[in-house]
């Protein structure tokens, strides 16, 4: 009975009620959206590297080394000499080690020099290995394996030539030594999708005729000669390391960190990520607080609408009273109306969020490399909806109390 009355009353004021509901819906969508992006970003980062016990690079900060070597974000770290790399590789604790050499680019994509062990040991999303969608792994010196996004964006197929640019601003190109696409990796949702992978030796080879960051004019070593040359690298950017046993992780880390010949840094990727979340945590909290305030604002807007409706509903209230409704019933009806508005708003917000995710997912993925999963609402989302309904009820108590008092007086005094 009361529910029918409340619904009918809301329907009668569809426009103003609709505005309040829309405000609540948008605010709830924003609040839940912030949380989705936050958890999506975390999961995306956490899924990028798995199974690697240590990352070794030049001494910098653990977050910087992680971001640069794995995510290709932020400032470049110094290089590590090949001698140090071999020293670490020779340590008994090391089960496997994969070199990573960054610095060159192809169009907007990074070129990474490594060896075939990368395909074997690089793991993402709880231990998944890289898979080739087409073609073969690195065979020839000038073979390149490209990530799924590289292939899709530049429309490359197997056998297409690739010219690597020196540095990341494409002013100078290694035009003399074109690569050939030998394989295309399946989509992983990690930065590997946006990477051109070549062999470490190839990185050396394309720099053979270069001195001081520019090509020596007129000097081009033919590819055949390069294939015969000793292309042992002089430096790498970082190395991914797997240890024999977790018990040796810390000992190896300490040994690398106090390696006397070169200032090196070994980090545990999981801990570096945790450190990163610690840093961005403040911004996250601020963002959540702001979106929370938006929800509060929307609810206060709803309160204002109920308040202003009280005046125009004086006669209605008086009739209810005359027909025997107790003041408590009036309060109950107002609270029920508010809860209905909040509930519809919150559910609409949830629907808006999913619609937005559906539209934004591919865009965000290609622009930021961030995969936002579309999943069923979590328990937390349900709590948020319930909290908004509850908060709506509490907020409506303020106008309801006023109506409670007024309906007493209005019921007894006859006014025109």
């Amino acid at each position, binding site marked *: 009975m009361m529910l029918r009355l409340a619904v009918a009353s809301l329907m009668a004021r569809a426009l103003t009620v609709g505005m309040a509901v829309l405000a609540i819906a948008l605010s709830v969508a924003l609040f839940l959206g912030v949380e989705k992006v936050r958890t999506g970003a975390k999961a995306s980062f956490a899924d990028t590297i798995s199974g690697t016990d240590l990352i070794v690079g030049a001494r910098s900060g653990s977050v910087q080394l992680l971001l640069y070597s794995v995510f290709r974000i932020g400032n470049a770290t110094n290089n590590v000499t090949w001698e140090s790399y071999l020293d670490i590789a020779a340590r008994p604790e090391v089960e496997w080690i994969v070199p990573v050499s960054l610095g060159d680019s192809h169009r907007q994509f990074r070129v990474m020099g490594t060896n075939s062990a990368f395909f074997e040991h690089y793991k993402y999303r709880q231990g998944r290995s890289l898979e080739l969608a087409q073609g073969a792994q690195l065979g020839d010196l000038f073979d390149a394996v490209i990530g799924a996004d590289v292939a899709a964006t530049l429309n490359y197929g197997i056998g297409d030539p690739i010219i690597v640019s020196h540095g990341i601003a494409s002013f100078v190109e290694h035009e003399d030594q074109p690569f050939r696409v030998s394989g295309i990796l399946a989509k992983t949702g990690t930065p590997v999708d946006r990477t051109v992978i070549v062999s470490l030796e190839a990185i050396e080879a394309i720099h053979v005729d270069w001195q001081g960051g520019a090509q020596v004019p007129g000097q081009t070593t033919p590819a055949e000669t390069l294939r015969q040359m000793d292309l042992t690298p002089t430096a790498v950017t970082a190395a991914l390391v797997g240890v024999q046993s977790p018990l040796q992780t*810390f000992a190896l880390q300490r040994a690398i960190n106090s390696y006397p010949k070169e*200032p090196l840094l070994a980090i545990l990727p999981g801990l570096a990520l945790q450190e990163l979340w610690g840093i961005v945590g403040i911004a996250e909290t601020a963002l959540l607080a702001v979106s929370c305030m938006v929800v509060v604002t929307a609810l206060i807007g709803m309160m204002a609408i109920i308040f202003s409706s009280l005046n125009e509903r004086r006669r209605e209230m008086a009739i209810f009273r005359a027909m025997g409704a107790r003041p408590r019933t009036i309060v109950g009806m107002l609270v029920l109306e508010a809860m209905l508005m909040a509930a519809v708003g919150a559910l609409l917000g949830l629907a808006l969020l999913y619609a937005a995710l559906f539209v934004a997912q591919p865009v965000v993925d290609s622009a930021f490399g961030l995969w936002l999963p579309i999943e069923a609402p979590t328990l937390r989302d349900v709590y948020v909806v319930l909290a908004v309904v509850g908060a709506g009820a509490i907020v409506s108590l303020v106008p309801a109390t006023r109506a409670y008092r007024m309906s007493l007086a209005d019921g007894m005094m006859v006014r025109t």
Partner: protein
Amino acid sequence: MKKMFFCAAVVAATPLASETERQLGAHQHGIGALNIAIEETAVLMELRAPGADIVGFEHPAKSEEHRAAIDAAVATLAQPLSLFVVPDAAGCSVTRASAMLETEEGDLDHDGHDHEDHADHDGHAHDDHAHEDHAHEDHAGHEAHDGKQGHTEFHAEYMLSCADPQALTEVAFAYFDSFANARMLEVQIVSASGAQAFEVSKEAPLLDLRSLY
């Protein structure tokens, strides 16, 4: 040495014998580091704590009192299960424990305070000399460094064997009761499920490990 907690990082170990390079590590009073690695039933723990946290001073022991304090601290540090209390259900026992004081002061202090393999007194198994070798390597570096006033650190390494590592759901840090100057331990844990970091403080001396499983 002033009892200044959380004072900015200054000097610590790793002076070098071979090269002309100079490197220093971080050193924060009040904050120690505990690394825990778990592989099946084996649990390795490494504790590094500034001298200021453990005995309240970092200068070389000059008086009998200081020596006694260091000896007592090293003896306490060699009892891991009374410093880091794990649930009985895990069935952990100590297979190796060692604690020592490391200083930049050259070899002055080492002989007196290096209580290597202290746990042997408790009759625990002692089948691994690898750690001993490692410790001496460390010392070789320090001895080459000529003495300036430096910071000292207590290092302890424990090897535990736990019958049921899944039952290691929490660790109670009685450590903070034993060493009144210690304020915080930065705990890093490596296990089959990956690496995780925690901060355990004097105010909240309980580490919940359920997220590891």
